[in-house]
């Protein structure tokens, strides 16, 4: 089955999200609050980057040179949401984003797992297995921390800051409109309500009417934090773009 441009746009947005989420998770390896968390973040980051590879392959076809595509594109060709471009320097923010993102990610993979395209379906089915553990990990940590005054304050602040960015994730962008639902599932925006229900269940009811995506959020536009993370990931590879690394 050949994917059309709108379906590829849906998958590219997901691939870029997974790539940057994996990249951001790597920043916590070795500096998490305890060794077990260093190990967990290592696993989760590897999984997200693995999903990015699989999705880039679907977007570009198997003969695409993944690294050239993932690292060599102009910044204007990226379609990541701003949630994953955001640096999270406090552990509470990293944990809350991990939960918000993985809950959305679960719904996205579920939507793809019914795809009429067997390659898409296979990638989604494998990813869903891994996501079960990611979600369990984030939930277990939150369960353990909730009820402590300082933890609750930090988690609350992180949630206030990150929720607007997280709801913006559900905008797949102009290029994805009209994508074939039998291939990529329902439009991303339709997943926002089940996701909100999960957030309410986890953190208590949120005032959703006042949670708006940040002004100017658009997957075709890069946030103020993109260049820093993009420069870092390209620092070595751009030393000699002709080389095999």
């Amino acid at each position, binding site marked *: 089955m050949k994917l059309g441009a709108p379906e590829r746009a849906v998958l590219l947005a997901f691939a870029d999200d997974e*790539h940057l989420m*994996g*990249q951001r998770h*790597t*920043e916590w*390896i*070795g*500096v*998490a*609050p*305890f*060794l*077990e968390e*260093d*190990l967990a973040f*290592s*696993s989760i*980051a*590897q999984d997200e*980057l*693995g999903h*990015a*590879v699989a999705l*880039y392959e679907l977007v570009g076809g198997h003969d695409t040179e*993944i*690294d050239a595509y*993932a*690292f060599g594109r102009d910044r204007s060709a990226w379609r990541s949401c701003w949630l994953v471009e955001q640096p999270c320097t*406090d*552990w509470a923010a990293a944990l809350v984003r991990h939960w918000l993102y993985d809950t959305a990610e679960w719904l996205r993979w579920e939507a793809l797992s019914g795809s009429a395209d067997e390659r898409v379906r296979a990638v989604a089915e494998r990813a869903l297995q891994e996501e079960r553990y990611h979600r369990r990990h984030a939930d277990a940590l939150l369960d*353990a*921390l*909730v*009820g*402590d005054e*300082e*933890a609750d304050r*930090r988690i609350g602040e992180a949630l206030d800051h990150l929720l607007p960015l997280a709801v913006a994730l559900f905008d797949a962008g102009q290029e994805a409109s009209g994508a074939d639902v039998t291939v990529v599932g329902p439009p991303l925006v339709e997943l926002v309500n089940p996701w909100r229900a999960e957030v309410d269940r986890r953190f208590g009811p949120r005032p959703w009417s006042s949670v708006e995506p940040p002004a100017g959020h658009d997957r075709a536009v890069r946030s103020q934090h993109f260049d820093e*993370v993009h420069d*870092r*990931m390209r*620092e*070595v*590879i751009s*030393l*000699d773009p*002709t*080389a*095999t*690394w």
Partner: protein
Amino acid sequence: MSTRTWHDLGDPGDLDGFVAFLAEGGIVEPGDPMPDEYRREVFRFIELHANSELMGGLTERDWIPKAPGLRRKMAIIAKTQDEIGHAHLLYMVASDMGVKTRDQMLTDLFAGRSRFHNVFHYAAVTWADQVAIAYLVDAAALISQQAVLKVCSYGPYRRILKRIVAEEGFHMRHGEEMLLTFAEGTEIQRRMFQEALDRWWLPALQLFGPDSKPDDELITFRIKSEPNEVLRDRWVQKYAPLLTGYGFTVPDPDLRHDPDTGRWEIGEIDWSHLKATLANAGPDSARRIGDAARHWADTAWVRDALERTSARAA
């Protein structure tokens, strides 16, 4: 297979009897009444190993976000995960010896009060330093660990070393593959690796430590099976020809191949560099320990919160 333990046989005050028990291949388990000297020396050795695995993981972490390529990045994450996983296991084994808890060991490490291997007191300046570390340092560590595994008398350490040595074998192959990529790479890559080799040859050589003393307690206690100089020479005999064979220059003006013996002879080693790292005063010690301490302090609230919530639950 012998099931004798010192617990059945010994009197903790009988050091000679204990050493004879070890010499016959006796294995010591955590509950055994081991002599204080043994407990102290073995604990110190395992703590040093644990700290080194952790600080090695931290050396790599700085480069993970910059890894050139998605699959390369996943591979280096997996390797870092192994190193931190080794530290995790080693801290458990060390804390079971009842000298310090894991928390005390980490607190001491980040306060600059305990030791870790000399190589992790240096800065990894470019990605090629990562390659040099994976190729030369991991190989040196593997040679040392294989020598410990050969005789290791402390049961829990012996068991986890089996796993560590198996995983380090994969790391060494990963290092070889990265080295080949550079050796067969572009001019820029070859120059980068040569510069990294100039920085890492001597620290890697000194990882084995100075020549062992004739009465090295760790050999008597059957933790080490061979003296440092023998292990160091094994590494030189393997890596000097490989590196020169790839057309790189080993930064030792006195290095020469003796056609009569077939051996590679190295020049005099300046041990002042090792001494500086042993005092946590190596070229990058302050930054490394300082960064680790700062991160540890930044996440203290999580550990404190978990302690409070679990105390409440109990």
